[in-house]
Each structure stands twice: as structure tokens, then as C-alpha cells.
């Protein structure tokens, strides 16, 4: 039995359905992420798990027990808020001791547990400081220590790194992974940042318009998006859309509008004439000048119309002779070169049929 079960949960605000029949089973010890754009219902779902909001339909079970009758203060889950919500009139120690006092922990045990929690987040020497004397990253760690000190069965994190700058965010990501491993508590993490979700999670539920679009491991979400939304939302992706022209021997040929026929390896049983899509990641496309690569399953000629230089890689925007726009990425890994192509260069694009991922519908 899963630790946290969300069964067919729905939440409406007037005419707007924020969460629409979501079912999830989250296992003990898992780092589980709810990923989606703002307004997709992920935060509403988190608030319902915490108890700040109640479902209009469906149930939320923790260890098999229905939580609906329990107010937030009586649920064995803890939340790390986006704004940290540290109590400004208490020191770091006072903040971390707060849930222990609420749980009527013996006064003699409190200092030990507080010290332990502060050690977990590497803030041992900061106990006497007030929140306004801490940096953003330190506040974040105090919020986590405060939430973990009573060893809840589930920790809910609501975009906890959103307010930090990029460098610090990466550091905190690594710390979060290690911390979760160390304490073994189930993390339910809400974010709109897909790279963060991919880096941190054991499993990701991609949400859109109140529904779960795909529930899978990060690598599968990235490589095998189940819907066009997932393909588009996670990373950058060329979505090649058109009717199926042929389907035989594990290969589908799609008449992509504005481009031409594209072959893709798939087990799909879609009939000829039905609308399908191919998700093609920029890094799967090979980009070169000279004669076309006739051996490749798919090859097109185009002109570089723009590029984005990222340092380690360059993203090229290529307009094909047929007028379609394709994004291709190449690593700037050759010695002595900064990048390979300039705007106006005629380039050959090619990729094997296994490079794309077919999405039916």
C-alpha cells in the first residue's frame, strides 16, 4: 500500500476546476514532484494534502487513513512554504523548537532535537540568530529544519527554491537530494521549473489544467512524453504535427505540415490518416554542412536564421527549404572552435527514425 494516496480528488472554485479528478499513489521514501505551469492545480493539490483546503470530491489517504476530518494542525505532514514563513519574533532555535512545543515534547528533550535538526541542514552555529539576520538560503534551511524536526511522514515543499538565485538554487538542489536520502522522509515537491523537477525527483506528475498529463520517472518524461503538452513543457522540443501517411514494421511515417514526410520508430497502432505528432529534441538532430546524409532516415536542408549561443552549446534556429522552423542544438566541443555555423549558412539536418518520439493524438 502506498503511503499517500490521492483518490479521484477534485476541487472547484466557482466555475473554475482547479484540480480535476486527480489520482496519485506516493510511496514511502519517495521524492515526488508535481510539475506544471502556474494555475495547473499543483499548489491547490498540495494545500489539500496539508489540510488548508478540502477536496470537493475524492479522498486523500495517509497510511490508509482518510485525512478529511483532520485540520492541518492534526495532520502528520509538514509544509515548507515558498515565503519560508519563519516567525520573525523568534530566533532560529525558537522557530525549530516551535513544532516540538506544539507536540508537547518534554522540555528537556527539545534542545537536543533542535540541535540535531540544525545539524541536518548545516546551520549549527546559527541558533541564536533572528530570521532577518539570515540570507535567503539560510532561511530556507531553517524552514526545512523546522518542518523536519518532528519527523513527519510527509514533507510538502511549495516551490521552495523559487526565491533563490541560480547558483544557490543548484547548491540547494544537491542538498535537498542528500537530505531526503538521509532522513528518508517522503518529499512531495511542487515546482514549475522543469529542470529542477528532472534533477530532483524519483517520479514526476506533470499537471495541466487540473489533470495529471503524465506520471513517470524523469528520464521517461523527457524522452517519452505521452502528450504534446508534456513534450512542449519539458525542455525544448520540435513538435512535428500531421496525418499518418504509413504505419508498418514499427515505423510510422507522418506527413508533417510545412516540412514533408518524417519517419519515426514507434509501437503505435495508429491508422493511416489519423493526426499524430512527433516530439523531436534539438540535441537529437545532427547538423552539418556539405552533401546530405543520405543514409539517415530523415534528412532536410535549411538555412540558419538565428542562433542562441549558450557557451557550452549553441541552439540553431533553422528554416528548412520547405519553410518549417526546426530547432537544433550542437555542442561547442571541438577544440579551437567557438561555434560551427553562422546566420545564412546552408545546413543539412538529419536524424534517425529512433530519435523522435511519436505522440498519438
Amino acid at each position, binding site marked *: 500500500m502506498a503511503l499517500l494516496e490521492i483518490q479521484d480528488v477534485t476541487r472547484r472554485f466557482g466555475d473554475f476546476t482547479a484540480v480535476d479528478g486527480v489520482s496519485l499513489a506516493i510511496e514511502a521514501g519517495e521524492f515526488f514532484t508535481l510539475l506544471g505551469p502556474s494555475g495547473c492545480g499543483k499548489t491547490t493539490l498540495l494545500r489539500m494534502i496539508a489540510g488548508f483546503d478540502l477536496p470537493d470530491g475524492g479522498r486523500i489517504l495517509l497510511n490508509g487513513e482518510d485525512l478529511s476530518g483532520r485540520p492541518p*494542525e492534526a495532520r502528520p505532514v509538514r509544509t515548507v*512554504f515558498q*515565503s519560508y514563513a519563519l516567525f520573525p519574533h523568534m530566533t532560529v532555535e525558537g522557530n525549530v523548537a516551535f513544532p516540538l512545543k*506544539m507536540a508537547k515534547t518534554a522540555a528537556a528533550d527539545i534542545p537536543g532535537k*533542535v540541535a540535531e535538526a540544525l545539524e541536518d541542514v548545516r546551520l549549527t552555529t546559527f541558533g541564536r540568530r533572528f530570521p532577518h539576520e539570515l540570507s535567503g538560503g539560510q532561511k530556507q534551511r531553517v524552514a526545512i529544519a523546522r518542518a523536519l524536526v518532528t519527523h513527519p511522514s510527509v514533507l510538502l515543499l511549495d516551490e521552495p527554491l523559487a526565491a533563490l538565485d541560480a547558483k544557490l538554487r543548484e547548491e540547494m538542489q544537491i542538498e535537498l537530494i542528500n537530505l531526503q536520502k538521509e532522513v528518508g522522509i517522503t518529499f512531495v515537491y511542487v515546482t514549475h521549473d522543469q529542470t529542477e523537477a528532472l534533477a530532483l525527483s524519483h517520479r514526476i506528475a506533470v499537471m495541466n489544467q487540473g489533470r495529471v498529463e503524465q506520471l513517470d520517472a524523469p528520464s521517461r518524461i523527457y524522452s517519452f512524453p505521452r502528450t504534446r503538452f508534456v513534450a512542449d513543457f519539458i525542455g525544448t522540443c520540435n513538435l512535428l504535427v500531421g496525418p499518418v501517411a504509413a504505419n508498418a514494421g514499427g515505423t510510422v511515417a507522418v506527413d508533417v505540415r510545412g516540412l514533408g514526410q518524417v519517419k519515426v520508430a514507434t509501437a503505435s497502432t495508429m491508422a493511416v490518416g489519423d493526426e499524430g505528432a512527433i516530439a523531436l529534441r534539438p540535441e537529437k538532430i545532427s547538423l552539418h554542412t556539405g552533401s546530405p546524409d543520405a543514409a539517415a532516415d530523415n534528412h532536410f536542408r535549411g538555412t540558419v536564421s538565428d542562433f542562441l549561443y549558450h557557451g557550452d552549446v549553441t541552439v540553431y534556429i533553422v528554416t528548412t527549404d520547405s519553410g518549417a522552423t526546426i530547432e537544433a542544438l550542437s555542442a561547442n566541443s571541438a577544440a579551437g572552435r567557438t561555434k560551427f555555423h553562422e546566420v545564412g549558412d546552408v545546413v543539412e539536418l538529419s536524424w534517425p527514425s529512433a530519435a523522435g518520439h511519436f505522440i498519438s493524438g
Partner: protein
Amino acid sequence: MQRRGEALGKWLVSGPPILYLLLFFAIPALIMVLASFRTPGEFGGLAPLFDEDGKPDLNVDSYVRFFTEPIYAQIFVKSLIYALLTTLICLVIAYPLATLIARSPKKHRDLLLLLVILPFWSNFLIRVYAWMIVLGPQAALARTVNGVLAWFGVEPVSLLFSWFAVLVCLVYVHLPFMVLPLYANLEKHDQALLDAAQDLGANTWQRFWRITFPLSLPGVYAGAALVFIPALGIFAIPDILGGPDDSLIGNVIKQQFLETRDWPFGSVLSIVLTLAALALAGLAAWVGSRSTRREASGA
């Protein structure tokens, strides 16, 4: 040039208020301190500062009088008790009221605040006199109270000209001064803190005492000072609504200056009143900071 222009600007801005305070607050206060050491004039006011020999006529007689005649200390203590009670009752009434306003929808808040300060639009004395009618023997309130008392076989009482009337009016007059700073404070509170406290296991009561109340203390102190200090020196309310035993220190001071015309003694009483108010405020701040520190460290 830039520097000089800036310095001149600073003086132009802060000069007039400083001058005003100097002329109408600091100098009069010093004159009062000086007056407290002088001798009362034969027909009231002050005797000449220098006697016939040209020596300054300064003494501590008025101070000695204050400390040797227990009646003044008694009235002083009574005034302190009235002011403290007024502050406490105002706090108890104003806190829920300010909370209600702070939590009501934004579009209603201005109207509610307007209602709180509406009484200021009519004259202070008129509002005090209005209580004479409200508490008068022919009014419905007194009749009801005495009706109930008669039913239990108790002699009728007078609501007017009593400590009760004085206290009710003190609270009524000072209530807005408690509501406004409390509202200003409570309105800024971050709901996320209460959510966090609840998430960490605090029930409604614990959320109030451990989060909302400590965070509202600056508002409580401001409101308490705004109520306590004027309530301590008030004389109009006991004059109009109090009985013969309800004279407060403000009445005595007024008497010294306007009726008895013993200015040195009136000055002594004023000075003691100011010092007592300062000492109490200091004590409150000290106690407050101590308990805040204890709460902060989670002890």
C-alpha cells in the same frame, strides 16, 4: 555648493518643528520646573523670584508637602488605577475590533475605520455631556438596572456621578486611540505565518498567543501609551461625570492653578505626574523586552 545646499535644506525642513517644540514644550517645561521651587504669591501665582535682599527665593517646600500629606499620594494612586483600568479595558475591547477590521475585505475597511473615528467629529465636551443623559436616573439604562436591583430587594443606585460613569466615559473617549495603532499593526500581519504555525501543530489559541499577539505588541504598546498618558491627566470627565470622591490628579492640578492658585504646588504635581508616566512606560518596555527575549529563544 551642493553640500551647503543640502545642509540648508535639512535646516529648512527640521528647523521650524524644532523651534516650535523648543518654544512651546521645552521652555515651558523648564519654567514649570523652576516654578516648582518657588514660593506661592500672597494673592496666588508666584512670589517674586528674588527677595528684597536680591537673593533667589527657591525652596523645596512644595515637594515636602506632596510627600508629607498622604491625600495627594492617595489621589495619585487612584488616578494610576483608573488610567491602568482604562487602558486594560480599551485593549480588551479594541483587540477583537481591530482584528475584525483588519480581516474584513479591503473595500469595507475604510468605512469601518471611519466609523471608529466618527466620534471625533463632535466636540469632546458634548460627548462627555451625552453620557450624563445616557447614565442619568431617568434614562432607560438606569431604570432597567434599578428595576432588576429592586427585584432582588436592593436599594436603587445612581449610575451618574460615580466611579462607574467616570470609567465608562474614559474608555469611550480613549477607545479609538487603542483601535487605530492596533489595526495598523494587525493589518500588516502575514497570513503565511499563521498557516505555518497551524501546519506545525498550533491550534487557534496557540496561534493567537504565540504568533499574533507577540507580533502585535508594538501596536499594543503604542495604543497603551496613547490611552494611558492622556487618561492619567484627564480632569474634564471626573468633573462632569464623577462624584465628590472621584477627583483625579488632573482635577487637583487644575484646582491648584485655577482655584487655589498655588502654582508651585501645581507644578510639583505636574512634574510628579510626568515622571510617573515616564517611569511606567520605561518599566513596561523593560518587562516587554525581557519576555520577548524569553519567547524568542524558545525557552
